[in-house]
């Protein structure tokens, strides 16, 4: 379910690192919890993201949720397709519905994030905490 090459945050974002470039998205758990995604507000090209800080918002029919950056860096690219097709986030959250690509300020920041096994455990615990 969760790609082993990605790293994950407690706020349910993922990051895939290739060299000094990080690609950021939200996890399948996050899209499922949000429900039908209808709007994604992303930063401008060149914006500086800070690890753990909000860099945009994602809205479903029912709710608004902040997007938190897994790492610090400068925005190189945003996924423009999401402006007209935000539902892609529900359909392919780990793939074509990536949100932004950043030039990482410090690739070592990634070491503090969860790997896929830890994230799966984290999600299982989060789900269990909800009362039946």
């Amino acid at each position, binding site marked *: 379910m969760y790609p082993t090459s990605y790293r994950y945050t407690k706020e349910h974002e993922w990051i895939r690192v290739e060299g000094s470039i990080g690609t950021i998205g939200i996890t399948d758990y996050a899209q499922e*919890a*949000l*429900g*039908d995604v*209808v*709007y994604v*507000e992303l930063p401008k090209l060149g914006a500086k993201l800070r690890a753990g800080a909000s860099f945009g*918002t994602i*809205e*479903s*029919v*029912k*709710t*608004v*949720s902040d997007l938190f950056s897994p790492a610090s860096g400068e925005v190189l690219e945003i996924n423009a397709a999401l*402006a007209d097709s935000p539902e892609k986030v529900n359909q392919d959250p780990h793939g074509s519905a990536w949100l932004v690509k950043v030039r990482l300020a410090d690739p070592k920041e990634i070491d503090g994030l969860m790997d896929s096994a830890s994230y799966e455990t984290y999600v299982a615990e989060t789900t269990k905490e*909800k*009362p*039946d």
Partner: protein
Amino acid sequence: MTTPASAALRKTALYDTHRKLGAKMVNFGGWDMPLEYSGILSEHGAVRARAGLFDVSHMGEIEIHGSGALDLVQWITCNDAAKLSPCQAQYSGLMTEGGTFADDLLVHKISATRFLLCVNAANQDGDFEHIVSENRFDAQVENAGSHYSQLAIQGPRAKEILERMTPTSLDAIRYYHFTFGRVSGIDCLIARTGYTGEDGFEIYFGPESSEALWNNLLDAGKSAGLLPCGLGARNTLRIEAGLCLYGHEIDETTTPWEAGLGWICKLEKGPFLGSDALARQRQAGVRRKLIGFEMLDKRIGRDGYPVRIAGREAGRVTSGGPAPSLKKNIGMAYVSSESSAIGTRIEIGIRGQWAPASIVALPFYKRRD
């Protein structure tokens, strides 16, 4: 993201059925209710194009009977219940002394001496106490919510689906009328009412039959594309239809004149609770009015967001969000009467930025008959 908070939440008789269907649950007015099953957009679309089935058993019922039943109903509500024929229903307001809404409700006249009120879940107990405290008439008042489950089947194919389940002639039930009949062998009050802007029915019956009736209706409607629907779709559907929700468009601070509900406020019927205040406000004119707006870019104005007109704070959004059938983002808000004309440019404050919107006519959506 909304997470159900505590075990103290009340549950309808269909709670386990909803969980089995994989519903996402939400706390609504102290009830643990289905928010969505397959997704708000698909459920919304099903109701507009085909049909949807809603568990609305959280809604409260209050029965009023006795020789003074009509007098009591007339005293506490602003619409004219004397105009009702037996087996006719009426949208109305439960009033405070100040002419504001203690609640909004449906008044069903069962007979000359018997009325069934359908009220909002969160207000049920308060409404009951309020009505009892105003009962200077020869009437009995019963807090009867636990005696009823309620299902709503809504959409252009609702009648055809329900027809497969009942010998009752549904064509004989006109809009805002009801009858007593059997659905799937279960004794029901079948009303041609709803909260979606579509044709449909609301069915009241004993809670012990809830699972059988729910499952049988879903089975009967499967081939027609009937979907189970949650409160998420119920909300987007009612906003498109421009219908008020208590605690949003109406509450103890708003009057029927302000809410655009003058059509349910019948001063000419004689004195009722709040009628003096309402007569004064009608004479003086209202300072604010409920308006509909649509966003002019892709941003979404939501409940509680501030509204600005000509650079000045003008009020707050009462309900707002995506309108799936209109492919727009819409909402309702109170603004000053002089700024309430259709076409007026307004701005909605969204996370510290002002997004342009335009006042439009209500309702946003009207079905083609």
